[in-house]
């Protein structure tokens, strides 16, 4: 791979990492928020959850700033290059679209969070650690897929996808 492309991929990996972090933090905030609203928490727990939610929201805000900045920098960098007429890929919803990759990454983060926080009384520590390790492996691979995807569309400056029709209403 040429050096220029390698450098670009490194930058896109950075975006991919921060997007992943943002998705994980989103899971955490939602978990606290849901418990605060629906779970009849004791006063102590309620206070604890509210504080945790606030702390995580601050992290979300910081992370969002970084993701936005990185996206803008990369768009500018890629825009200096000529558009490459790469092979047009048929992008299918729920298979290889941008949102599908993000959705998968988001779900794997939900599972990771679940193994880290909610399984302590249900399975052994050894099993939890095994599951966490597996989740992390999946997430690493998905982050690479996301970075490759971004590389391809930013080089071609082209993203065409089939719009799916709803079956149930």
């Amino acid at each position: 791979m040429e050096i220029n492309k390698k450098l670009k991929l490194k930058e896109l990996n950075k975006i991919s990492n921060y997007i992943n972090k943002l998705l994980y933090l989103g899971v955490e905030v939602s978990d606290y928020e849901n418990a605060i609203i629906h779970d009849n928490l004791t006063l102590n727990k309620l206070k604890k959850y509210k504080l945790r939610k606030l702390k995580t929201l601050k992290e979300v805000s910081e992370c969002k700033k970084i993701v936005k900045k990185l996206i803008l920098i990369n768009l500018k960098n890629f825009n200096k290059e000529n558009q490459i007429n790469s092979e047009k890929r048929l992008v299918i919803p729920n298979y290889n679209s941008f949102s599908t990759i993000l959705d998968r990454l988001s779900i794997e983060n939900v599972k990771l969070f679940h193994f880290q926080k909610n399984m302590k009384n249900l399975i052994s520590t050894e099993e939890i650690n095994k599951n966490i390790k597996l989740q992390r492996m999946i997430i690493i691979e998905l982050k690479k897929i996301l970075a490759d995807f971004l590389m391809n569309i930013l080089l071609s400056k082209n993203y065409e996808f089939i719009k799916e029709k709803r079956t149930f209403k």
Partner: protein
Amino acid sequence: MKKKILKEIKNDINLLVDNLSYLSKSNRLTGIWDNRRFQEAKKEINLVNLEYLYKTEKLSRKNVEARGLARTNLDNYLLKILKNLKKL
């Protein structure tokens, strides 16, 4: 002209990033309420709390819809950003 396009791109990046958070939230909440419905439905029929079961279904479905909306928005904002990028 270029300034206007750049402003639009920045705005779409903001919206795209916000939708990443919505996606994450809806996936987590779908998981929670889908599982709570599953646990409630495991009980013998006469022990099922119908009101609670209804609540789990409503909240789970609401978040499935929110997830679909976030996903559609993510694809659309990316498309819009790339189209505007070509104009610069």
